[in-house]
Each structure stands twice: as C-alpha cells, then as structure tokens.
C-alpha cells in the first residue's frame, strides 16, 4: 500500500490551531466567508499563498505560516520541524490574544503534544511527541502590511509518522 505523501505535520498543526482558535472565540469564522468560493476560508495561510490572499484578508486578523527547517537526527523515526507563525491584525490587543493563546497552548512540550494527539480531527498517521515555543517576538507595526501590527511565534515540533515494520510511512 502506498503512503499518503501529501500529509504534512504542519497542515495537521494548522487544523488543530484553527479548531482551537474558533472554539475559544478568538476568531469568528463567519468573518471569513468567501462569496467567490462559497465557503469559509481559514485565515491561517502558508506564506506562498499570502500574496493572493492579501485582498481577501485586507483589514482582517490572520496568521501567515512558514516552515523554517526540518531535520531527522540520529533517531530517524523522529522528525524535528520549526514553524514560524506571523500574526497580523489592525488591533494590537487581538495580536496579544492570539500570541498568548499560542504560548499557553504550545509551551508545555509533551503535554502540548498530548493535546494535539487527543484531538479527534488529527490524522491517524501522525504522533506528536513534543511542541514548544522556541521564540516569541514583541508586537510591532508591520512593515509588510500597512496599518497592521504583527508578531511572530516560532514553534519547534517533534513528531513521528506512523510506520510499517520496515520503517516506511503508512
């Protein structure tokens, strides 16, 4: 059986993060309805899609993410990734709210990983081992988006893909 190589830990983490942000009323998904697509758009976008989303997200709170690095060390079963999330909002306090939530949710290493593993929406092909906040920047006016404030949160994530007996992805 061929593994699904389209699965990605960063996408799984993004799904979890969006679910938490909605559940805790930090984001209101109704604000992100797209008439063109006839569906809600998740305002956590990869940096590669950021330019095309600029118009839609104009003036709206959103998060842009990018993978900084990915490495397997001596233990090839465990992958280590660093992910950069940049939070944008025109409201200073909204940025702090998202940043503080992410800090609270993701600073506890194996406890944070356990929360993600317990979430029913997670693909059964992943097991997270540890998530922690590697860096947080202060909130400052954004140089990229006029009128927005921005803050960065960098997460370091350790996880495994579920494997067969030969160590290949399932």
């Amino acid at each position, binding site marked *: 059986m061929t593994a699904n190589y389209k699965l990605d830990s960063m996408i799984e983490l993004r799904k979890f993060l969006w679910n938490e942000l909605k559940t805790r009323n930090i984001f209101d998904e109704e604000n992100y309805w797209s008439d063109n697509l006839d569906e809600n758009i998740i305002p956590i976008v990869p*940096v*590669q899609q*950021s330019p095309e989303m600029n118009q839609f997200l104009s003036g709206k709170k959103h998060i*842009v993410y*990018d*993978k*900084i*690095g990915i*490495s397997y*060390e001596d233990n090839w079963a465990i992958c*280590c990734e*660093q992910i*950069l999330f*940049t939070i944008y909002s025109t409201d200073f306090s909204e940025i702090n709210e998202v940043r503080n939530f992410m800090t609270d949710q993701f600073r506890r290493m194996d406890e944070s990983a356990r929360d993600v593993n317990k979430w029913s929406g997670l693909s059964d092909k992943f097991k997270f081992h540890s998530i922690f906040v*590697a*860096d947080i*920047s202060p909130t400052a006016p*954004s*140089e*990229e988006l006029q009128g927005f404030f*921005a803050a*960065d949160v*960098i997460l*370091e994530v350790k996880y495994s893909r579920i494997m067969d007996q030969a160590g290949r992805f399932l």
Partner: protein
Amino acid sequence: MLIQAASGLERLMGGSKGNSLKDSTVAQISAYLYYNAHVISRLTTNKQFQSKFSELIFNQIDKDFGQYIDSLARTRPKSLHHVYEWGKTGNKSARLFDLNLGSQDGLSFKISYSFKPSVSFVPASSKFTRRHVFTNKASIMEEGRSLTISPKHSERLVFEADGETVFMPIGKSVTVKRPGGTASRNQFSLAHGRFFSGQLVNNSIKKSGFQQMFNRSMAKALSLPSNIKKVQYSFSPNIIRGQADASLAAAFGGVL
C-alpha cells in the same frame, strides 16, 4: 586551579617516605584522581578539541540562522529582500549574507556577519539593452543609505518610473533616498539580534550534537590506563601526565 590541587596528590602517589603511611590503596586512588584531573584540565587547552568544539557548534548555528532568515524573508519580503539576489527573496542559494566564525579564546568564540556582493543584474525592462549590477545592494539597503546614480557608460541616464520612460539631462545624476525602501533599514541586524539574543541560538547549540561528541570522547579519554588499575605502592606523576596527554590526543585528535 585543578592542576594545583592535583599536585598535592603527587606525594601520596610516590609510596612511603619518612613517617608517611605506606598504603597501596591511597597511592592508587591518588593516581586515579591525578590522572582524571590532568585529562580534564588539559582539555580546554587542546587546540584540536577547541577547533572541533567551535566547528560543530558554528556549523549548526550557521545552518539554523540561514534557515531562520530565509523563512523571515519569505514572510516579510519588503523587510529582507535586500539580503538576497533580485527576485529571489528567501532562497538559500541567493543569500547575500554570511556568518563568520571569528576569534577564539579557549572555548569561547565570536560569530559575526558580513554581506556578500550582489552579482545579478538589477531588474529592468527588456527594452533597455544595458544591464547593471548593484554590487553593494545588501549593505547599502541595510544601512538605509541614499544612493547617487551617475551616467558612466553613456551620456545620460534613462530609466523607467511608474511605467514611464524618463530621460535625464546629459550628465545629470539621480539620488535614490532609500534604495531598498523604508522597510528594509536595519532589518537584517534586528533579525540577527533576535536569533542570537533569544532561545533560538541555544536550541541550535543543543542540536549541534556537541554534548554527544563531548560525552563519547570524554568517556574514552577518562578510561584508566592499565598501570593505574594495578596494585602498586608508587606511581610516577610524569608517566601519568604523559598518559593523560596521549589519551586526550587519542580521544579528540591532534597534539597537545
């Protein structure tokens, strides 16, 4: 300090003299401590070890810092486009910055950064036949310095601004106040400061594998020579010092 303290053991290793107690256990334990003290104290002065130490850590920091800047640049191109070749912001192979391993004092070393010259042509409309390279793009834009462009190979400057072709009077120059835009000034320096003053550099050091390398080599260097394992009433400090040096050289390589 450690060597000084260990020198007190030499008397106990030397067997009995006068009223001293003649005891092989005391001599052997003293020799054991003397050997360990010499291995540990000579470690930080071992050039090969210092070089391995700094190289291992620097290589990891260099890799992580580069990836960090690439990612930041992709997320905020207006702020960091200037430290990449034109149109290749966030691309590893187009970086115009380098980290440099500087002077070393014991196990401390300095890391600095420098900007590389740009080698690609400044983007221009295809109707212009002459192309130019803005060599010091990264450093000038980072410093936010203004730039004066004068005609060099022809009598006047011709360029495009807002879709219009502008013909400057013969010999006249143009001053660009902020060649990289207002957003790029000092942004690389800020990102560099953030990486090196926060948790990111510590994570990088941890990831370097230095601890594993150190532990493996140290365990090898500290393994006792066979003569110290044998029951004796007297041990030669000179021989033990030589054995400590040889053992360190074998564990970390090179001459002490």
